[in-house]
């Protein structure tokens, strides 16, 4: 006897993969991902276009300080002249440094603006440049320290690098945090998107009344499984395509980087400006950047990470997918789904909220419990894995997840088989409980 689950699975797969939406998502996904990686740096490169400010320095201490600033500071005689210039549109703003307080170690400056608030980065820049100048001035006045020596002390810096005691590998905590968040979010997103697709598929079959025809050829459980597994394959296909496309895109960008063109160098610099990799490097260090990326990939144990991602992706998806199907079976149209959605959405949202905590303390009790309990574990555990999780916890978590999806599928299938043929009766929780207990 030919397995009808397989026939259903094929239909679910092909009709969905052929949809325009799938194609668009598949193309857009990697582009967005890569864009997300490079956008902050690119935006910084483009930055706000530099503006011209009037500088009214009554102390005469800071005339040189802003020479190297991003924005241009033009020295103006007094605030009246500056304001006149602003009104004419010559200056975007005016920086007034009053003489009062110049004696103390605190200098108050006022940045006038007319139309738009000065950006945080402008204020930061002014502060740091002026602070440096102020320290220099104070040092000269209060001590006989050599300015060069002062410069040297002033630039002292501390970097903490964490390293595995046994292997000596460097751990890139910040990168791991990002990876953790991305993986957790991917699982969350996929469960939601594909779960709702299953749900609307079930509602479609029910409201189209094709279900009665289907069910005379296929057992409800076969139909349910065909749908759930078919969608799982659609999800895996999408992930695979995303992976391949992202890899190709980054490789293309990487190759351009090797060529040493101006743009590519900026790209490489952008990569290096990701957290944990220090400030942007000079163009000549493109190669070094590549080496560092290599090291990061190694420190993440990318292979086992991907393997766990696959396991938790499938586990989490299977746990929720049939529940989404059961909701679809319990209602007659999309609008009625709300009352049943919260038991499914709340644990998912909780999971993604907990991830933020996990990043701060990957071994805390909240992180531990939510990564063991099946309803949140796919999201939370995935976020913990980059930081390292004891094997027994992984085994327990995965074991419970398997039990969880078997249990949820069993319950969902019992609701589904009754619900799909139930018209005119609005499902309530009491009603669903009755359906679960119905005999075959």
């Amino acid at each position, binding site marked *: *006897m*030919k397995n*009808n689950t397989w*026939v*259903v699975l094929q*239909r679910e797969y092909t*009709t969905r993969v052929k949809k325009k939406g799938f194609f668009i998502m598949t193309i857009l996904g990697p582009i967005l991902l890569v864009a997300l990686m490079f956008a902050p740096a690119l935006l910084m490169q483009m930055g706000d276009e530099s503006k011209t400010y009037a500088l009214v320095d009554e102390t005469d201490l800071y005339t040189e300080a802003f020479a190297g600033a991003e924005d241009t500071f033009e020295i103006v005689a007094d605030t009246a002249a500056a304001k006149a210039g602003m009104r004419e549109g010559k200056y975007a703003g005016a920086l007034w440094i009053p003489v009062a307080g110049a004696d103390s170690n605190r200098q108050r400056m006022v940045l006038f603006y007319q139309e738009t608030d000065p950006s945080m980065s402008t204020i930061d820049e002014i502060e740091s440049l002026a602070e440096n100048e102020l320290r220099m001035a104070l040092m000269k006045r209060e001590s006989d320290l050599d300015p060069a020596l002062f410069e040297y002390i002033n630039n002292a810096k501390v970097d903490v690098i964490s390293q595995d005691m046994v292997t000596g590998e460097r751990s890139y905590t910040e990168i791991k945090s990002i990876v953790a968040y991305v993986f957790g979010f991917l699982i969350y997103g996929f469960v939601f998107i594909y779960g709702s697709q299953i749900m609307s598929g079930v509602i*479609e*079959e029910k409201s*189209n*009344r*094709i*279900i*009665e*025809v*289907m*069910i*005379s*050829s*296929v*057992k409800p459980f076969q139909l349910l499984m065909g749908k759930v597994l078919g969608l799982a394959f659609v999800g895996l296909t999408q992930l695979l395509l995303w992976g391949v496309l992202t890899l190709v895109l980054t490789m293309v960008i990487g190759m351009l980087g090797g060529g040493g063109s101006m743009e590519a160098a900026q790209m490489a610099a952008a990569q290096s400006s990701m957290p944990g990799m220090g400030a942007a490097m000079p163009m000549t260090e493109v190669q070094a950047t590549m080496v560092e990326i290599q090291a990061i990939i190694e420190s993440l144990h990318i292979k086992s990470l991907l393997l766990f991602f696959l396991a938790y992706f499938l586990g989490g998806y299977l746990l929720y997918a049939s529940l989404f199907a059961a909701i679809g079976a319990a209602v007659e149209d999309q609008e009625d789904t709300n009352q049943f959605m919260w038991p499914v959405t709340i644990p998912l949202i909780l999971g993604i909220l907990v991830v933020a905590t996990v990043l701060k303390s990957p071994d805390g009790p909240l992180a531990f419990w939510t990564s063991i309990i099946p309803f949140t574990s796919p999201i939370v555990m995935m976020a913990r894995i980059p930081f390292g999780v004891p094997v027994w916890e992984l085994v327990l978590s995965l074991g419970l997840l398997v039990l969880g999806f078997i249990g949820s599928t069993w319950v969902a299938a019992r609701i589904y088989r009754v619900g799909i*043929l139930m*018209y005119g009766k609005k499902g309530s929780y009491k009603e669903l409980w*009755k359906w679960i207990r*119905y*005999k*075959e």
Partner: protein
Amino acid sequence: MDFLLDAKGIVKRYGTHTALDHVSISVPEGCIFGLLGPNGAGKTTFIRIINQITAPDEGEVLLKGKKLSREHIYDVGYLPEERGLYRNMKVGEQAMYLAQLKGLSRMEASKRLHEWFEKFGIDSWWNRKVAELSKGMQQKIQFVVTVLHKPSLLIFDEPFSGFDPINAQLLKDEILELKRKGATIIFSTHNMASVEEICDEIALINKSKKILDGKVEDIRRQFSDNIYHVMLHSSPEKMEELASAVEVMENTPCDAPGLYALKVKMGEGKGDGNRMLETLMRYGEVKDFSEKLPSMNDIFIQTVKKAENEK
């Protein structure tokens, strides 16, 4: 007698509600069997049990002498009353899908589908989306996928609803053709005229119980109340005398002089058609004589009402 389908003592309960209460229905091979009953009587539940969509709580169903099992899925074709198609699928893909679920290989399904589509003149719809088709067009496709795998038992639930008269006739011819080819057909409907026209046997279910079954002819005869249509050549005097011998229910004068079209009834227990004929002959020349059997519609209403009153 060989029964293709033999349901014995079927009981189905949903919670406290009993949908079928010890219903036994036997469908002989090669006949068109009408499954009748008011809305909510339990017909759909019975059909769902035959289709193994749901299982009975008590009783058993034999198909070709064997207890119903998953293999029988491929030997049954079911056109539900509430029928639909995937709106966004192409007609051809859709039909191929449903055919494969009934166990046909892709090749076989494609071959048979094209044959049927050509027969119905709908081959050009193959690549069109279901959503673009009218309801009548969709019904044709549903009919085709129901019979495509050549099942020995076909179940049509209200097949004519939504068909225009021309397509209804087409469908009726196809159903009769299927019967001629040896298929057994269960036909559930409210349309009593079509029952008289095409059904060989019927079963009437009311409030989850079977209250009547048998051959259509037998049932109509059984419900006969000895009413006859008669053309009598007589005279007004003789006609008056006749009225005292039998009950004249209608007397329609005809154009021809001395010819009367009558509807007459024999009193209870006063004999059969021959007695009536004998009586009539004494009052004139019988030109035409036929028994007026009650319509299935009357029988349906009468039986259901009687069952209600007995409660």
